[in-house]
């Protein structure tokens, strides 16, 4: 199968398409891999879920599992849809109709669960004082990107259900996605996809690009090895030290009453402002 040919010969693939679907994915991949390696080596101390359960757990107890299990189901759905070619599912006797019914029903449930979860979480974050105060600019930016990626994804589903003229993603997005991993990007396939798919793909790439630099990194250290490790951990001279010595040593602990807690407490009206009030 010659995958280089369409890029060169197909008249539909202009420079814009090549940049978006032929170059950008590799830039994003480089950023994700490079960024993750960098963060792993230099910021182990900052690599955490930054859980806010200590402040509030009533809403979190419902919203967080809803979001996380939802997003895991969405991830599984994406792997199914993007990695498995239509010919394979056809080969095991699954008709196009059956496939799409399954993908749509399960996908919609998972997608809505995820959306409800994240909306609840964002609402909790905004309305619970301590949680909002522990929210950094980085977090806010990340939430916008994550929410937008989710919304564009749900939009693609809605649009392709309502508008049957949209090209099937299994003929456009999926072949392009698979072609990325063999370093022969099928730009033409993606260029032929509907605009909603393109928007979602672009947004997803943006999300991946910021991934290593946000709290989302905690997903990369999902503790699957917990299932296999012994319960009691001894560390002795022979097993060596952790990655501690690679870390920069500049992330760390701060005195009580630091800037982000200063509202009211230490940022009492300055003498000058007091004088002005009198």
């Amino acid at each position, binding site marked *: 199968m010659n995958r280089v040919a369409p890029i060169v010969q197909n008249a539909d693939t202009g420079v814009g398409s090549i940049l978006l679907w032929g170059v950008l994915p590799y830039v994003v991949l480089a950023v994700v891999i490079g960024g993750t390696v960098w963060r792993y080596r230099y910021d*182990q*101390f900052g*690599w*955490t*879920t*930054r*859980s*806010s*359960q*200590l*402040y*509030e*757990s009533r809403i979190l*107890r419902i919203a*967080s*599992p809803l*979001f*996380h*299990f939802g997003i895991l189901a969405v991830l599984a759905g994406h792997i199914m849809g993007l990695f498995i070619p239509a010919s394979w599912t056809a080969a095991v006797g699954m008709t196009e109709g059956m496939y799409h019914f399954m993908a749509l029903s399960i996908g919609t449930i998972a997608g809505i669960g995820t959306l409800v979860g994240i909306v609840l979480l964002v609402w909790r974050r905004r309305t619970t*004082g*301590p949680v909002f*105060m*522990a929210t950094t600019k980085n977090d806010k930016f990340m939430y916008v990107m994550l929410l937008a990626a989710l919304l564009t994804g749900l939009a693609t589903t809605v649009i392709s259900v309502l508008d049957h003229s949209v090209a099937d993603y299994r003929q456009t997005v999926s072949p392009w996605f698979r072609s990325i991993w063999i370093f022969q990007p099928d730009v033409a396939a993606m260029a032929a996809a509907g605009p909603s798919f393109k928007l979602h793909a672009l947004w997803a790439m943006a999300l991946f690009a910021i991934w290593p630099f946000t709290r989302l990194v905690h997903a990369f*250290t999902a*503790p*699957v090895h*917990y*299932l296999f*490790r012994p*319960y*009691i*951990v*001894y*560390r*002795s*001279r022979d097993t060596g*030290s*952790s*990655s*501690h010595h690679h*870390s920069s*040593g*500049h*992330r*760390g*602990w*701060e*005195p*009580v*009453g*630091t800037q982000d*807690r200063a*509202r*009211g*407490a*230490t*940022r*009492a009206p300055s*003498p000058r402002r*007091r004088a002005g009030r009198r």
Partner: protein
Amino acid sequence: MRVMAQVAMVMALDKCIGCHTCSVTCKQAWTNRAGTEYVWFNNVETRPGQGYPRRYEDQEKWKGGWELNRRGNLKLKAGGRWAKLFGLFASPVQPELNDYYEPWTYDYENLITAPAGTDFPVARPKSLITGEDMKIEWSANWDDNLGGTAQLGHLDPVVEKVRRESEDKITFEFEQTFAFYLPRICEHCLNPSCMASCPSGAIYKRAEDGIVLVDQDRCRGWRQCITGCPYKKMYYNHKSGKAEKCTFCYPRIEVGIPTVCAETCVGRLRYIGIVLYDADRVTEAAATPDEQDLYEAQLDIMLDPHDPDVVAAARAEGIPEDWLDAARRSPVHILAKELRVALPLHPEYRTMPMVWYVPPLSPVVDLLKDQGHDGEDASTLFGAIDALRIPVEYLAELFTAGDTGTIREVLGKLAAMRSYMRDIALGEDPDEGIAEAVGMTGAEIRKMYRLMAIAKYEERYVIPSAHLEEAHNLEEIGCSLDVDGGPGMGQTGVFGEASGRPMPVATENFNALQARQRGEDPTGNEGLAGRVNLLNWDGRGNPQGLFPPDSGPRNGTN
């Protein structure tokens, strides 16, 4: 047999006056940072009381520690590995801030910046969490016997249990209220359930000294350890998003000095020493079917450092000679294993805790005296143990999983020691019958008296220092203290102490500092050719060039 060494502690509760010095010095040393405002690695609870966090002993609610499954194997009470992973996204029974307390400070600035007026300015309490004004409603020892025991004592989970079992034997009428203090640190367990709960494997037990630490670089904030620890001595730093815990002051222990809590204890009730144990039998001992046999099982895996077989096995494991020597002199080994007067806290959690307690006897002597008896007479004293103001049942729930027999034995020994030693103090012949009545010999009683009443610093703290040849291994195996603002930030640069780049906490640094201070050239001025860097002079020694040359013997000056 796999011999391992463990640094352990004994606290003699009779001597605790509840002054909280240990808590305060510990907090100053370790948790005076953003994110740990509510954290007390060491806290002192008034018992009966709810403790900190409130009602932490109610394991039906908090699911801490281990239990046995139907096949008799150990299982985390909060659920196995799969249950933990499924509970990752919202830790099922993690205490909230309100279960500890909302930390606060006061707006002291207002006291000096408030405009002149008719009212006195006040320093209003401000939450350290939200920064807003707050109403102070609870803190780490709010149900103190001076403040709340009479009203809140019935909320103590142990009281609830004893009441259920002994049909309201414990009353809380004020004049009959009993109280004692229970200082608590991390138990540095042999079978820690926090460690078993950690999905990341960031919590580890140091093979050299058994201290349980959290690798701050590997912790990912899944916070399962907080549920896992039945003593609730794992804390979530809400600023860094990492778990933190009592470190047994390992930078101090490594150089042979006691923990901050022990060093500053005004009652001198803490003892630190080494115990040797058989690491191969820990799981088996922790899985002992009957909860009341756990204490015995725990003593059983603690090895006798005088036994030649144990010594040989310890040497084979590479335990240094001075550690073996320290194990033989260990006050913890003597009090817990030889004399059997120190008991583990809540052995029924099956974590094999390594902080031991000598239960309190003290009110009984005063009580007898008040009633007109001779408070130190053996026959009266033995008889009065069951009439203790602190019910034996209550102590049993804390220290022996409800086995009152063991508590009676220990209190009997404490009472016997008083009577036996009184005779000696009065110049009479000691009555060996008193010792025999509690299954001891006179020599043992004198040994116990020596250790509990007059032991000096070197006897209370028998801590072998970490070996220099091993120091590079112990040094900072992951628990990063030497970060900016961290408690381990010790620095010595060209501008004297506290200048230059951060220096890790390690044996070498301590020894270098000590050598510098005690050495020939304490200020390091040899290279300055007659000049003195005053910034480096710490007042010790007599740096060359600082004072005029000593021109022979003079009077009055020097």
